[in-house]
């Protein structure tokens, strides 16, 4: 009995636990997860603004990429400092391919060394100063390189001090790589190992600059750096939507009057436009009235009117009618104040060729 009960209990337990494990959780109804779609109702004008981009915006999408560091480079780096080794090894082939196209041409000119730091390595004979180049191992991604190229000029004079200062810290951190040659004034090497931040990219350039003949005046360099700074700032200058600028369609307009606002304005002026019905030559008559508006919608100054078509007196009358329409309708106080920028100037074209 006891045994039977026990067996029964065990058996039941087993069955139940089996059932519990297998049967208990029925397969979930596989319904695809539908995410709630947030819907914003926005005027078309806002939409066009949001999708507008700025050609000059920094390339925001390209992620700060992991540097395409090659372990191979690391190995080379150990030899970099050693001019003898460098000289012996016909390095150029291995290293040159990595850097970008830019590398090729500069060889001819001594100055060219500055730009593609990589190249210099391949030509140790040219000058001793070029040797520090090792930094090139960075094999920075294209983006980085861009910066180097662009910044170079201002580095020449302004950052030379900085260039000297920084390396010292680096030395402290990574002494092992440094020692090799005696002649080196500053080691770029350590930087390489550490990171490939922009700064570092600049530093080597600076070093080179230091070595390079100081042909350019500081003033000029300042000028250039200023220009560069200014240029950068335009990308996020005033008159932008609040969204971060992004590459996209060419930005041609800022805020615009909505279609409704335009229609209202058109209707208003049309109502003020008093014209003689059945005018001779009405098909050919055109007039354009240009006028500046104050923020309160009043006319600022006299409207400028041009007209064409018809004979002189009809044209003059048409011109008068067009001007009167714009003047009679003033003030334009129903225009949205916050868009004043967009309607500060009003141009009205009159063409009634379809009317008759």
């Amino acid at each position, binding site marked *: 009995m006891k045994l039977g009960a026990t067996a029964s209990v065990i058996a039941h337990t087993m069955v139940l636990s089996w059932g519990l494990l297998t049967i208990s959780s029925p397969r979930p109804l596989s319904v695809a997860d539908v995410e709630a779609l947030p819907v914003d109702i926005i005027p078309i004008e806002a939409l066009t603004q949001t999708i507008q981009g700025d050609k000059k915006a920094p390339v925001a999408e390209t992620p700060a990429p992991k540097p395409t560091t090659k372990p191979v480079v690391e190995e080379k780096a150990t030899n970099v400092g050693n001019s003898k080794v460098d000289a012996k090894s016909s390095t150029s082939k291995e290293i040159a391919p990595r850097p970008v196209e830019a590398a090729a041409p500069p060889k001819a000119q001594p100055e060219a060394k500055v730009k593609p730091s990589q190249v210099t390595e391949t030509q140790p004979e040219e000058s001793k100063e070029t040797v520090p180049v090792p930094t090139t191992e960075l094999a920075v991604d294209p983006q980085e390189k861009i910066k180097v190229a662009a910044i170079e000029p201002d580095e020449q004079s302004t950052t030379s001090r900085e260039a000297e200062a920084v390396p010292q810290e680096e030395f402290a951190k990574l002494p092992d790589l440094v020692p090799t040659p005696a002649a080196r004034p500053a080691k770029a090497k350590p930087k390489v190992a550490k990171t490939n931040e922009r700064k570092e990219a600049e530093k080597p350039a600076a070093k080179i600059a230091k070595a390079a003949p100081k042909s350019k005046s500081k003033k000029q360099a300042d000028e250039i750096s200023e220009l*560069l700074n200014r*240029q950068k700032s335009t990308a996020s200058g005033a008159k932008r939507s609040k969204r971060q600028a992004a590459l996209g369609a060419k930005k041609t307009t800022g805020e615009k009057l909505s279609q409704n606002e335009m229609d209202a304005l058109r209707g208003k002026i049309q109502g003020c436009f008093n*014209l003689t019905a059945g005018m001779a030559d009405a098909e050919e008559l055109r007039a354009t009235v240009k006028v500046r508006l104050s923020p309160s919608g009043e006319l600022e100054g*006299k409207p400028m009117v041009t007209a064409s078509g018809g004979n002189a007196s009809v044209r*003059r009358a048409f011109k008068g009618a067009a001007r009167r329409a714009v003047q*009679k309708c003033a003030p334009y106080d129903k225009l949205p104040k916050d868009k004043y920028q967009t309607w500060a100037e009003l141009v009205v074209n009159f063409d009634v060729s379809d009317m008759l």
Partner: protein
Amino acid sequence: MFGHYASICRANIFALVRLLTIAVLWTGIALQQASALVEIDITKANVEPLSIAIPAFVGAGGEAEIARKIAAVVEADLKRSGLFAPIDHGAFIEKIGNPDNMPRFADWKVINAQAVVVGRVVREADGRLRTEFRLWDVFAAEQLTGQQFFTTNENWRRVAHIIADAIYERLTGEKGYFDTRIVFVSETGGKAKRRKRLTIMDQDGENLRFLTNGNDLVLTPRFSPSRQEVTYMSFAGGEPRVYLLNIETGQREIVGNFPNMTFAPRFSPDGQQVIMSLQHGGNANIYTMDLRTRKTTRLTSASAIDTSPSYAPDGTKIVFESDRGGRQQLYVMAASGGKAKRISFGTGSYSTPVWSPRGDLIAFTKRSGGKFLIGVMKTDGSRERILTEGFHNEGPTWAPNGRTLMFFRETPGANGGPNLYTIDLTGYNELKVKTPGFASDPAWSPLLE
């Protein structure tokens, strides 16, 4: 981005950077400009009449009454044109004291006047009247035109018409037509025995006088477009003849002496020729006659009735009616003759075509569905528009600016008779012309010299 610049020498980089910066700055400015501008196209207009304020002219001394009357005639002329809406004097805020001063435009804006006319009448030492006026644009706050006239007392109405013409022309761009006269056939007496006299009056119905005594039947008077002369048909002596009458001198002469009936005479634009129909048996053909040499030229030779010829204002073409196609239709032909081109194709028959002095339209009488209609079409026959219709409308004549038509409308019944009406070429503003009795066959004069 700058990667490909890397190979360029430094100097070039500077230049590039500079260029780029400039370019960026300029695009910035361009963007700014492009966005700070709203451009609107207006393709429809309000065809309401233009509101104008014409306060009484200022009369120095004892001329207040005539000054008031002149302003009133100007106002009435402009109002009748249908293109102006004079504002009621009761609404005026500013009282014009000195017409040489600028009006207070704000006061006129309030009552929605788009233009203000101020003027004054002064008696000169030699007894003549000096009338001057200024037309002001209220919204632009500037004078559009200003003139002065010297004339005798009796001519005050003409001065008023001339002023109205000046205002009309300055504001519409078209010549006015107020300083003109109408010749028509005045009809008095019962329907059985009507007395028809050639009559002349100002276009507003004033200064009426009779040109013929009413013993003979007169028909189809037509004004010379260049002189104060009228040609008309008369049955004096029992036979229809074309006469020429000088209005100023009252001198009358027969235009040629033809063996057959002549009818529907009309002047050429230079006034040197008369174009008309001459009957030959059952046919009628179109002839011109030089008024100086009296030489006639035959223009058509169809075996049909060609009649009612009318010159284009440039004198190069004529339009006439002909039944050569079976029904009366309108045809256009070179003024020297040749091949005629049919231009009317609507249902019904067309007659009495008149080329607009503006040159762009031809007015006609159309008979369709038992009704007489007055309409206009382009000179190639397109865009036919009917302006008015009724039991009997006929004989359209153009105002010299080609903007308004006058015609006569006959009412049916024993007591019915013809009356003169004007209508705008857009088909609006139909008005009855004030005449002493019944009137028909109007002819509008050119602007007086």
